[in-house]
């Protein structure tokens, strides 16, 4: 079976996100001063061939932990669905 994973990789809460901070600042310039605390991460999609959803989940976890996220500075979250 083929599955699609939708992965979000975000900087850890305790880490300063300078990109998000710069964008937060520009919200004020847009007249959207109600918007605070913009944080910017990555959205990654990928396809997995696997027998079961559990097996696909295991593969995506491995990909996130080994390469897609650096757990020293980032956290990840994903959803899976059948293609």
């Amino acid at each position, binding site marked *: 079976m083929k599955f699609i994973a939708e992965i979000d990789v975000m900087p850890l809460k305790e*880490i*300063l996100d*300078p*990109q998000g901070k*710069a964008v937060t600042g520009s919200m004020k310039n847009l007249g959207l001063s109600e918007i605070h605390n913009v944080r910017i991460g990555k959205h990654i999609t990928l396809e997995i061939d696997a027998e079961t959803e559990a097996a696909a989940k295991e593969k995506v976890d491995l990909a996130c932990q080994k*390469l*897609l996220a*650096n757990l*020293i*500075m980032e956290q990840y979250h994903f959803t899976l669905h059948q293609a």
Partner: protein
Amino acid sequence: MKFGVVVFPGSNCDQDAINLFGNVLGQKVVPLWHKDHDLQGCDFIVLPGGFSYGDYLRSGAIARFSPIMKEVIDFANKGGYLMGICNGFQVLGEAGLVPGALLHNDNRKFICKNVYLKTQTQNSLITAQVDLDKALKIPIAHGEGKYYADADTLKMVNDNDQVLFRYCDENGNITAESNPNGSLENIAGVCNKNRNVFGMMPHPERASDSILANQDGLALFESILQAVL
């Protein structure tokens, strides 16, 4: 002593390192192509600066899985000497060979300028002969050089004397103003617990050849030669 400089796609300081070891220091040096699996009997491996794999995903994240890295990691785990400069330091962090990680500079800018470094310990191969009182003038050139580690790791790094360099001003004072990128505790370079893997963001290989009119970086490499030869 034989030096090996790994060449990743996007490395751009490999020739600076090769010139340093070969022409300035008169040592044997070979480039090591990232797709090879042969370290060619080198005694000291350098991961050079640059933008390996275009800094895609995270700086150093993809280079860490280049074919030759399997041998490089085995070499380091057996006690072999390994040094990562700038992008090389980022690769070491991604590979878990040194503690911590390198984040985007606090000011979001790519910073290319001379900074000053205070050597923190002589208990390492690359700092054994470096004057602890001298502020070394060494260039940096990076966008992601903010040293970060969680509180426990930072404590361990300090307790084990693993901090090699901190950013300082030209008089050697370690101050917030002299920290170019927001690195925690002004940390510019660290070693691993076994003291055979060294990572630093500044470029001592770009401050070692007399033609560059600044040889403050040479002390690091002379330390290596004096200890080994």
